[in-house]
């Protein structure tokens, strides 16, 4: 279930990158000078970082790391 939600989150963010709703307008100007299309894409980058945090927290391939860490002490003792 957790994995499915994460896949949905990744796909949703990918779709949200195509913000056709702000395509032809610069308004509103955020802080009085940043066009909305640029501000949206900046926020998108922050959202991407949050998504990466979720992936790291809930879908980290820890088995790969454990496998290596188990091998390393074995290799050290055989040296």
């Amino acid at each position, binding site marked *: 279930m957790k994995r499915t939600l994460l896949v949905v989150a*990744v796909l949703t*963010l*990918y779709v949200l*990158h*195509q*913000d*056709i709703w*702000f*395509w*032809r*307008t*610069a308004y509103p*100007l955020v802080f*009085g*000078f*940043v*066009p909305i*299309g*640029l501000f949206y*894409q*900046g926020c*998108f*980058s*922050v959202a*991407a*970082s949050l*998504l*990466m*945090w979720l*992936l*790291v927290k809930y879908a*980290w*391939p820890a088995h*790969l*790391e454990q*496998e*290596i860490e188990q*091998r390393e002490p074995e290799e050290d003792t055989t040296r």
Partner: protein
Amino acid sequence: MIPAIVVFLYLAAVLYIGIFAFRKAKSKQEAEDYFLASRSLGPFVFLFSLFGTNMTAFAILGSSGHAFSNGIVTFGLMASSSGLVIPLTIFFIGTRVWALGKKYGFMTPVQMFRDRWECSHIGTVIFVVQSVLLVPYIIIGIMGGGTTLNVISGDVVPYWFGGAIVALVVMGYVFFGGMRGTAWVNTFQTILFLLFGAIAIVVIGVGMGGFRSATNAMLSSPALAPLLTRERISPYYFFSYTFIPLSAIAFPHILIFCLTAEKMRHFKKTVIFYPLCILAIWLPCVFLGVMANRVTDVTEIRAKQEARRVLATQGRTMPPEARDKLREESAGDDVIMILLKRYAPLWLAGVLGAGIMAAVMASDSQILALSTMFTEDVFAFYGHKKRFGEKVQVQTGRLFIVLITLVAYAVALRAPETIFELAIQYAFSGFAALSPLLIAALFWKGSTKWGALAVTLWVAAAVTAVAVFQQVVPAPAPGPSIVYGKIGAWEVLSRTPGGTAVFGFMPVVPMVIVSALLMLIVSSATRKPDRGTIAKYF
């Protein structure tokens, strides 16, 4: 001259970092230490050096130049899509490649492909295609260095001398420091970008009298207002660009960098902070590039805008050469430097110029990657490591670095820069279309060496075809494209002012899709590797 002196001090500092790294590793003569820093990079250096490796001259100068001509769309096209796709590929592919490297001692992608698909010469074909796509970066890095030093010094340092100095410095710290030196220099450079990007935006913003008035003035000008929206860009083109960041993980220098982390957990910070680093560097560059359009009291900016206006209004009736000349004149790759010269005090322009030099010199990782690939995928693979030993292998790597830098410098002096800028455009699409190789090797048991060969040959053919097409058919003036074939409302193939479109998409979209299909179809019809080999990976 003061800015040039600051830049020279900066160059001396990075050279010293390389020599310091050399002294630290003096006792070691192992290939793994020289080419991969003994797989020992900590989380901080790993994040900043991996990010710095990806931030080429194109990211800093090219992004502001693109924004100057195309507006705010540049950030969504190139930065925010990379902020999603690149960390995803590092998360899914980079971590797995790191684990396999630790387990089986791989130092290059081709070593992994050869083992995974039980092939030898097909690996060599992949090596050749990767190398050909990588070389233009090294050349453009030297060209960028020559141009930047020339501009910063106010023509005191000629282009040929600037290029030679940059080539020597990069060659020096890569030659001495290997991966350790390169990673430390990249970390230093990334910190410079981040610091000076912030300083630049404040200094220029204050100099312009605040961005609020500049934005409002642009919005009231019919010629400039569209730069604050995306109305001139097709949504298909925008969507196509999300395929380009797939190239990052397929670049050999990025994948090789993934092998340098000491622990897999070091990837965590890289994956999380990557989108924020992109935001911190690209947003100021893009915004300043757009705002440069308001600095009409500077002759160079006015000349660029005039060239853009003539191209848009009279371009259709001009011969292709005249259009190309106007395109070159209207290009904005130097707008950040023009803004610095206009608004920053001399000493600060020097410090900020050093930050720009840091971006321009990002060809170090590509040089080191080519050397690693040559010594591992050719020298060692064809038996020379066994014959001559590891020490000779490292020396061969160093010799290769000298040779490739000299050749790149010689080419940079003679060839026009636009050729290599185009080559880099093709290289991004080419590496993106090579990404199915990595995905298939790591996630699909059924993939075979013949599928890998089909993908590689397809990429070589497709990149060549696009290059030839764009060479034979000159780019039209801004406006409607030249269309070849239509199916209903869809334009099959068209030559656009900015490149090529297939069914309205950039060539990278069909290239990646066909690559994936070829891997699927050819692998399904050919013999799989032994079960023992597959068991090593799944």
